[in-house]
């Protein structure tokens, strides 16, 4: 049975108990399956994390509920379901720092807000450093995090050993000098974030339309008027492109050429193990990071394969590199069997920071450029795009995520490596 709008089932521990006693016959689908209407106030292209959260905050914060989210596959079938689930606010640059700080605060109340268990686990994140110079850089980053109002603790070698006794502290190539500890960092259940936002947006009247591929964007005299889709034409006063790795293709339908190159990023999961890695550990020098899922699998990844790709699978050189880095850092994982690996299509921007902005077409908005860090941004990204679409002015924590910043030189180069496509 597909629920009607307003037919809201609240989730709770009591409900689980009650349904258990009744043979679990009372559960209903979490959202409707509406056919598209001929027209909406807002059409959001892309039913991933960012698109769904945009729809939710449009409805919740701005009362704009005549909204459709168009998804060419099924909800949450893109990067929101293919990432390594890390949530953190350890950015340094003004422009990034306040945005990710805002996002973490939204995460911390997300489950109550959505009435959905997204399994947000603030287990702490540790970024390791391996030289005096790196220690200085991390001390500076930690101070920026504290100045932003977030948490950061600079650990020495013994401090790291206390938290992560299983690391190879004797290795000589990258000796562990210490780590920057971010206690509020952690992980969340990635699919549940998409489902939670979908259900909460649906309850507020948003139409979530799956298997609906956008094939054209209608523009009349420089203003967007709607979209053409595999399920017919849909008129709209405002349209947002929120499609991550496919941003260039959808923007091209509006005649736009974006500062985006799509790259492949691989991730890996092992068989389930008993709890052994209690934190998120990031080994930047080896391009390796790892956490353990609640199911027990070790979830880890590395760097981009570093060439433009839409293949959603990587090549062997990066697989080997990631395994070598993992073995260098924590030889104890060497006996764990890798169950699967996969690749996501990353919308890489030249400076490594995102774009939440208007486009040159009136009424058409763009949210892209999340590089390899879009998951933790899901709440604030939707919140800020909704604010921009509803009020016409950028949200104060996303004011620097401008589309034209590459032309004007107002770059947000968090890594400090330069503003060029092959550097991030």
């Amino acid at each position, binding site marked *: 049975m597909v629920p009607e709008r307003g037919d809201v089932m609240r989730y709770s521990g009591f409900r689980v108990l009650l349904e258990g006693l009744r043979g679990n016959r009372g559960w209903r689908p979490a959202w409707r399956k509406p056919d598209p209407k001929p027209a909406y106030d807002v059409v959001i292209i892309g039913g991933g994390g960012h698109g769904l959260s945009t729809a939710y905050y449009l409805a919740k914060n701005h009362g704009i509920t005549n909204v459709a989210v168009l998804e060419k596959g099924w909800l949450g079938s893109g990067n929101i379901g293919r990432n390594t689930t890390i949530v953190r606010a350890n950015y340094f640059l003004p422009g990034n720092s306040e945005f990710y700080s805002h996002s973490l605060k939204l995460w911390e109340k997300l489950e109550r807000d959505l009435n959905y268990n997204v399994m947000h686990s603030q287990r702490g994140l540790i970024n390791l450093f391996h030289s005096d110079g790196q220690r200085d850089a991390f001390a500076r980053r930690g101070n920026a995090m504290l100045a932003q109002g977030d948490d950061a603790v600079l650990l020495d070698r013994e401090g790291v050993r206390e938290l992560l006794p299983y690391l190879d502290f004797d290795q000589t190539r990258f000796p562990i000098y210490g780590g920057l500890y971010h206690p509020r960092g952690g992980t969340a259940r990635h699919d549940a974030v998409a489902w939670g936002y979908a259900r909460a947006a649906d309850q507020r009247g948003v139409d979530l339309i799956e298997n609906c591929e956008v094939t054209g964007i209608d523009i009349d005299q420089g203003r967007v008027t709607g979209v053409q889709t595999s399920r017919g034409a849909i008129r709209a006063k405002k349209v947002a492109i929120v499609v991550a790795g*496919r941003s*260039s*293709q959808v923007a*091209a339908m509006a005649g736009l*050429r*974006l*500062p*985006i*190159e*799509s790259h492949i990023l691989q991730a890996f999961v092992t068989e389930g193990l008993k709890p052994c890695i209690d934190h998120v550990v990031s080994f930047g020098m080896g391009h390796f990071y790892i956490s353990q899922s609640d199911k027990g699998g070790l979830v880890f990844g590395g760097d981009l394969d*570093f*060439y*433009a*790709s*839409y*293949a959603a699978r990587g*090549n062997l*050189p990066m697989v080997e590199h990631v395994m070598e880095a993992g073995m260098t850092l924590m030889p104890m994982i060497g006996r764990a069997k890798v169950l699967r690996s996969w690749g996501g299509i990353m919308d890489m921007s*030249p400076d490594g920071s995102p774009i939440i902005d208007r486009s040159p077409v009136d009424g058409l908005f763009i949210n892209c450029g999340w590089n390899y860090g879009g998951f933790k941004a899901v709440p604030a990204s939707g919140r800020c795009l909704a604010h921009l679409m509803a009020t016409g002015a950028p949200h104060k924590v996303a004011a620097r995520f401008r589309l034209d910043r*590459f*032309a004007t030189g107002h770059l947000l180069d968090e890594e400090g490596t330069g*503003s*060029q*496509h*092959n550097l991030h």
Partner: protein
Amino acid sequence: MRITCPCCGSRDRREFTYYGSDDYLRRPDADAAAQAWDDYLHNRDNPAGETRDLWYHDPCGTWVKVTRDTVTHAIHACEPVAGEAG
């Protein structure tokens, strides 16, 4: 993935460094408009399908223009950049 170096023949992808789209071969004039420079440096077609991009063969120092498919990772053609760029 294997790429054919015009000097050395078919070689493992690990011997190459990726630079980016062959837009880099179409450098604007020094007095071109800012928009032309923005397009040259930042904006990309970023095709899902056939693309042409630049790879550097580290051992021999040859720049290679590779025509390949970004969806299948198939390599269609590898040509030397030397002689083409102005």
